[in-house]
C-alpha cells in the first residue's frame, strides 16, 4: 500500500500543469475562478487548444483520438485542470454521446461525429427528460415515426443544459408505441436547425439561463440518425448515464472552491477577527475539508480498483452523493461568509466585460446566486434519492 503518486505520475501532472499555465488564457482562468459567465467562443477555443495538444478526449481510447491514459492519469488531468481554473469540460459530446457512438454507433456515425466532438465542431445537447418524466425516464412520451426515409419527431424535452449554444441534440423517443415502457424507446440524433425545433429558455431562481425546453413539431431527421438498433434506446441511455459518472464527485473543483472559501473567510471579519480564525466558522470549514479529504481517498481507491481491472459498480454512486453534498456545503459556506452582502443581486458583475464598482466585496456577487444554483447538483443526473435507491439495491441487496 502506498498513498503517494509515483514519480512518473507526478511528472505527468507537472507536464499538464505547465502546459495549462502556458495555454489557458488568463482572462478565462480569472472568470472560471471567480464564477463569472463563460462565453461560448471561450469554451470552444479551450477545447480546440486541448485537442491540438492531443488531450481533447482525456478518457477516449487512442483509436478514436484519445491519449490512451490510465485511470490515474485521467484523474490527475481532471485535478490539475480544476486547480488551474480551466473551464470544466462539456460532458455532452465527450462523455455522453461520444462513448455511446463508440460502442453502438455505425461506422459512418463514428467517422463523422467523433472527430467533430474532439474539435468541438459540434456543440451537443441532451434530450432525455420530459415534463412528465424526471427520475422516471421510462415514462417518456416523445414520438418518432418512420415516414419514408425519415423519422418524424413530435414532443417536448426539458432541462436541456446549454441548448442555446448547441447545434446538435441526442434524444430518446418512443419508436414503437405498442411496446412496453422501457422497450420501444430509441436514441436519435438531430440537427438543432431542423425546421420544427424551437427552444424556450428556462430561467432559474438564480436569474441565469442555463437550461431550456425544446419543442419538436413534425421534425424530420434522416433515417441514418438512429443510433444502433431501434428499441435499444433505454439500454444505451443507461450505458451513457454510467459513463457520465466519470468525475462526478468533482473533487478537483471542490478543492479549488475550498481554497476560494478560505480566501473569502480570511478577508471577512466578525468583530475584527477574520472568520477563518473564528471558532464556529473555522470548524465548519474544517468539517467540509475533512469530508473532502475522505472523498478524495475514496475516489482514489475506486480509481485504483478500476486500474486493477475491477469495473466500479454502483459503489461509485456514493461519489455522486457525497460529492454533490460537499459542493452544496461549499457554496453555502461562501454565502454565509459574506453575511449581509449575500443579499445584493448584481448579475452585471458576472458579465465577462463588466468593470463597475462592486456592491460590497468584489467576490460577493456570485455567492447568493451560486448557492441557489447549486441546489441542482443533488437533483440532476439522478437525484440523490435515486442514487440511494440504486445503492440499496445493487450494493446492499435490499
Amino acid at each position, binding site marked *: 500500500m502506498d498513498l503517494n503518486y509515483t514519480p512518473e505520475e507526478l511528472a505527468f501532472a507537472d507536464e499538464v500543469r505547465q502546459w495549462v499555465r502556458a495555454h489557458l488564457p488568463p482572462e478565462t482562468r480569472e472568470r472560471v475562478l471567480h464564477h463569472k459567465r463563460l462565453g461560448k467562443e471561450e469554451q470552444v477555443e479551450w477545447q480546440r487548444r486541448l485537442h491540438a495538444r492531443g488531450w481533447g478526449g482525456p478518457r477516449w481510447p487512442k483509436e478514436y483520438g484519445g491519449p490512451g491514459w490510465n485511470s490515474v492519469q485521467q484523474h490527475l488531468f481532471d485535478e490539475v485542470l480544476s486547480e488551474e481554473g480551466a473551464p470544466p469540460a462539456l460532458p455532452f459530446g465527450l462523455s455522453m454521446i461520444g462513448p455511446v457512438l463508440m460502442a453502438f454507433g455505425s461506422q459512418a456515425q463514428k467517422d463523422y461525429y467523433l472527430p467533430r466532438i474532439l474539435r468541438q465542431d459540434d456543440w451537443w445537447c441532451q434530450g432525455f427528460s420530459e415534463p412528465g418524466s424526471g427520475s422516471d425516464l421510462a415514462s417518456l412520451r416523445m414520438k418518432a415515426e418512420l415516414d419514408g426515409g425519415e423519422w418524424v419527431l413530435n414532443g417536448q424535452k426539458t432541462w436541456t443544459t446549454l441548448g442555446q449554444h448547441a447545434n446538435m441534440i441526442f434524444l430518446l423517443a418512443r419508436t414503437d408505441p405498442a411496446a412496453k415502457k422501457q422497450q420501444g424507446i430509441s436514441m436519435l440524433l438531430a440537427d438543432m436547425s431542423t425546421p420544427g425545433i424551437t427552444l424556450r429558455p428556462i*430561467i432559474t431562481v438564480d436569474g441565469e439561463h442555463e437550461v431550456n425546453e425544446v419543442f419538436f413539431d413534425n421534425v424530420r431527421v434522416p433515417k441514418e440518425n438512429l443510433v444502433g438498433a431501434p428499441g435499444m434506446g433505454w439500454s444505451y441511455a443507461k450505458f451513457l448515464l454510467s459513463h457520465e459518472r466519470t468525475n462526478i464527485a468533482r473533487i478537483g473543483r471542490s478543492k479549488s472552491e475550498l481554497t476560494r472559501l478560505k480566501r473569502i473567510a480570511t478577508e471577512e471579519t466578525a468583530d475584527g477577527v477574520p472568520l477563518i480564525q473564528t471558532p464556529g466558522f473555522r470548524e465548519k470549514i474544517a468539517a467540509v475539508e475533512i469530508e473532502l479529504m475522505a472523498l478524495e481517498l475514496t475516489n482514489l481507491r475506486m480509481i485504483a480498483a478500476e486500474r486493477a481491472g475491477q469495473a466500479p459498480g454502483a459503489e461509485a454512486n456514493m461519489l455522486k452523493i457525497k460529492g454533490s453534498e460537499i459542493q452544496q456545503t461549499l457554496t453555502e459556506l461562501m454565502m454565509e461568509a459574506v453575511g*449581509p452582502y449575500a443579499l445584493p443581486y448584481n448579475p452585471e458583475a458576472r458579465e465577462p466585460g463588466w468593470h463597475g464598482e462592486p456592491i460590497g466585496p468584489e467576490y460577493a456577487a456570485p455567492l447568493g446566486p451560486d448557492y441557489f444554483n447549486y441546489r441542482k447538483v443533488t437533483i440532476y443526473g439522478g437525484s440523490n434519492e435515486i442514487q440511494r435507491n440504486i445503492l440499496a439495491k445493487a450494493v446492499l441487496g435490499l
Partner: protein
Amino acid sequence: MDFSLSDTQQMLRDTAARLIRERYGFEARAKILASADGFSREMWATFAELGLLGVELPEELGGIGGSFQDLAIVLEAFGRGMVVEPFIPTVVLGAGLLRAAGSEAQKSELLPRLAEGRLFLAFAHGEPRSRYSLTHVTATATGGADGYTLDGAKAVVLGGDCADVLIVSARTAGKPDSRDGLSLFLVERGAPGLKIRGYSTVDGTRAAEVTLAGVRVPRSALLGPEGGAFPFIQQALDRGIAALCSEAVGNMQALNEVTLDYLKTRTQFGVPIGSFQVLQHHMVDMYIAQEQARSMAILAADRADSPDAPARTKAISAAKVQIGRSGRFVGQWAIQLHGGIGTTMEYSAGHYFKRLTAIDRTFGDADFHLSRFATLDAA
C-alpha cells in the same frame, strides 16, 4: 396562558389574508417585481387604506393602537404572499424607532404621514465591515448645538432605495465598537452629500448602499438622546427580527403547502411521488420544523416590545436561531422534493426558498444568534 386571537387580530388576519389572496398572487407579484420601482406604490396605498401601516400607532396619530402581536399577524400573511414592499423598514424599524426615541414634534410630524402611506423610512445602521455587529459603527456625527455633520458609509440598507427619510446611526463619541456614543439622525432624501445606490436583493426586495459625505443636518434631526442610542438600536433590531420570524412562518407554511401539493399530484413510476416513504418522512420533518418555528415566532412577537432587554434579547436570539434553521431545512428540502421545477423562476417554491435564505442573512444569521444566546446564557 392563551393562544387564541383577539377580535382585532382576527380582523387583521382576515384583512391581510384576503388582500394577499386576491391581489398578491404569484403572477401579480411577478409584475410588481418587474416594475420600475421593484415594488407597488398602489399596493402601499392599499396597505394604508386598510390600516395595516398604523397597526401599532396610537389613534391620534392615525393608527389603531395595537400591539406588536397584532402586527405579527399581518406579517405572517405577508410572508405567505412574499410581499416586497418596504414594510419592515418603514413600519417595524422606522416607525418603531420614532415611537421609542422620537420627540413629540418628530412623531406628530412623521407618523401620521407614515400611517397614510406618504412616507417611506429606512434604518441605515449596518456598515460595510460590521457584519452583524450592533455596535460596529464608524460613521461619525460632529457638531452640536447648531447641527451635525455626518460622514460614513452604510451597507445593505433595507428599503434604503425609496426611503424619504433615513434614520442614520453615527458616532458622536466612543470607540468604533463601543455601546456608548451612538446617536440617531433623521436624514432627508436629497440632502447634499447623501448618496444612495439602490439595488434589488436576491429575494426581490430592495436595498441600498448609502454614503454620507459631509451631510449637514439641524439639531432637530437628532432622534433620541445624543450618545445614548444603543438601547433603541438594539430594540429596533429585536423588533425587526421578531417581524422576520412571523414573516418566515407564513413563508414556510405556504412553501410546505406547495410542496405537499406537489407530492400528491406529481407522478413518477406510475404513482404520486408522495407515496415514497423517504419523501414522506422529509415532508413530516419539514412540517415539524414549521411548527417549531411558529412556536418561537409567537414567543418573539410576545417579547418584541419588552423593556427587559436581556430577557428580550435572549428570546429573540433563540427565535432567530429556530427560524434560521427551520427555514433552511424547509427551503432546501422543498427544492429537493420538487426536483428541477423547484429551481425555476416560473414556480413559487424557489422564490420562497430565496426569501427564507435572505431572512437568515438579515439581522444576524442562525450561527450569530446561537452564539449570542449562548453567551447571554453563560453570563
